[in-house]
Each structure stands twice: as C-alpha cells, then as structure tokens.
C-alpha cells in the first residue's frame, strides 16, 4: 500500500481559497489534486479564528475546469474571536481520485478576521 501522510497549513482573511503550505512541497497551493486511483483522506483539522466566519473543506471533480464547481464536505463555524476547532476524525473524510482531476481545498468565507488551519492529510491507494 502506498501512503503519504502530511500536514498542510494555511492562514488567511476575507473570502477565498486559502493558500496552503507544507514541509513536503515547495511554495503554496490553493488546492491539492488527487492522483487518479488514489484517495485523499483528511484525518485531523485544527483551526483558529480571530473573528466570526467559517472555514470549509471543499472538493471538486474537475480542478482543470475554467470555473471548477466546489462542494463543501466539512465546515467549521466561528462566532467570535479566539474560538478554536480541533477535530480528530475516527474515520477520515475521504475524497476519491476518480479521474485524476479531483482536488480538495480549504475555503474561508464571511470572515471578519483572520483564520488559520492545519489539516493532516493522507494521499493513499489503501482503503
């Protein structure tokens, strides 16, 4: 079985896809594309806000489309500054790489402050 577990980190404010960075890749990306036949699993989500707003984990079936359609599969709502979220998934969020064009991103919306998120992500061909 092939498996790579890594942590991505992003921070941002306002509305939009968060720029993510990690020790395993150079620079930043605003989504993670899933190789065909593999799966992306989100095992843990850690987030903090300094104002009301939401952070969503979203996927698309075609990140190469001119305007990809993003679907929310996980959402954390903050109502006040200083709120934190720590979610450890017993069974992870799983997104399949059906065509190799699927991708996952973290999206901030309705933000009145700044937000930080860490995701423990695995790309694997295992169940």
């Amino acid at each position, binding site marked *: 079985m092939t498996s*790579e577990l890594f942590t991505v980190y992003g921070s941002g404010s306002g509305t939009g896809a968060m720029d993510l960075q990690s020790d*395993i890749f*150079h620079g930043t990306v605003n989504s993670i594309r899933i*190789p065909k036949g593999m799966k992306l699993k989100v095992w843990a989500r850690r987030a903090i806000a300094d104002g009301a707003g939401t952070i969503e984990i979203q996927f698309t079936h075609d990140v190469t489309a001119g305007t990809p359609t993003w679907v929310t599969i996980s959402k954390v709502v903050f109502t006040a500054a200083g709120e934190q979220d720590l979610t450890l998934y017993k069974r992870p969020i799983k997104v399949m790489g059906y065509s190799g064009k699927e991708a996952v991103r973290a999206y901030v919306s309705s933000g009145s402050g700044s937000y930080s998120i860490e995701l423990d992500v695995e*790309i694997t061909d295992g169940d």
Partner: protein
Amino acid sequence: MNLLDKYGLVREGGLLTMYLPATSRAFVFRVKARANKGGEVLNYGPLPTATSDTLSTYDGGSVNPSVDGTLPARAYTESIKFSYENTSLYDTSDIWHVPEDYRDRLFHVITHVTPEFLRVGVEVPSGVTQTYFQRTKMAIGVTGDWGFSRGKFEMLHIPKLGVGYRFGNDTNLEVYTHVTFHYAEYIVEVPTDPQAIFDVLTGGIPSHWVAMPVTFYDATIKSALISTYGFEGFPVMPKWSKDQAIEVYNALVSAIPMEVRG
C-alpha cells in the same frame, strides 16, 4: 525460515531467481554472503534534479524545478542515474554500475522514494522503455496512465548493465523528494547442478523470484548477460519436460565463469 529479511532482501544461503520475461529465461543465484550485512539502508537524499533541468509535464508543457531536488507539479523525469562523488567508485555517475568482472557481486536494490505517491519506473538499459501494452503497440510507464509503481521499486542490478530510473508526480504539488535504498551487495554463485536448477525453476526448491522489468530484449542486455555470466539464462521449462530441461541446463552450465560457478 523466511527467505527474506525485514528489508525484503535474501538471507545468506538463500536462493535468488532473476527472471527475464522477454526471453522466458532465468538465472539462479545462491547468496553466499552479503557484503553490507547490517548496513542495508542507504539514505541517498533528494532526487538528483536541478533547477537547470527542463522536465516534461503531463499537461504537455515543460517546467524547471524551483530548487534542486524537487519534482515539480505534474512533471516527470527523464532517465535518472544515482551518482556519488567518490572517485574510488567504478562509475561516479551511477552507484549501481560495475563492470563484468564484478560477476560475483549482485546488487539487490529496493528503492523507496518519498512522497510515496510519486510514480517510479525503470529503463533497461537507461533510455530504453520496457513497459508496453499489447505487445509493443503502446508504450506505457511513468509518462503514461499505467505501467508504473508508486513509491517503491525492486530491481536487480547486474554488472555491465546501466539502468535508468524515472519518476513522475501527477499531483499539483512541487514536492521535496527523498530516496532511500534498501540494498544488498550479494556475493553470489550460480548453481551448476542441473537437477537443482530445474527444481528451483519449477518451484520445488524455495527461491525469491524477481521478475526483471525486461520485456524488450535490447542487445545491450544480451551482451551484459553473456559477458558477465557466459550465457543468457536457463530456459524456464515445465515440470513435464524434465529430461529435456536437465539436458539443456547441463549444456549451459559449462559456460559459467569459474568465479561464480557453484
């Protein structure tokens, strides 16, 4: 006792069969000793990519690594050899490359690359594709949709035959890479007892089989086999052809050089 150790390498005294699909022939080796016992892990470091390299991408363009050692998003390498800057080596551009007079040595190499989702494949010899679909109708492999491994590749490196590795990254991440080799430098002999050879090749005697990624029998491969071992391998024959097999093997063993005769 298991033939293999925790790294997937053959224990001393064990048998290793190198099978060549292109010819349906095989070599049987007995591992007399392991020259690097206890030192099987070689943390090589990043892939030897450089910012000056121009790599093709799965989307039809090309890209340069932003920093040395990364594999850019959607990019794949050409044939890579693993160099090491020590002038004592036979070939500093390829640590697994030795001449035919090293015939008593055989490198069994299990390459691990991180991130594990990277595609891995080999070219034997370097620059020659060995992965095809529908005979040779369509080349596949790291650059295609299938015909590759991810994260790991098992290979036998015989003397005089340079092998190239290719890596591919079908994510959108420019990844930092690391290569770890689990390897054994076997000191080997080739059994000369036709009955024992037959028993190994028909499964009667346990042996670790490595099917070499050789589906196209390039002249370089043939030349390396003959100059190293004196022949092209034992034909793999069915159990019901025992008498014929013994006769064929008996004729072939006379070509095996003295240094590796078992």
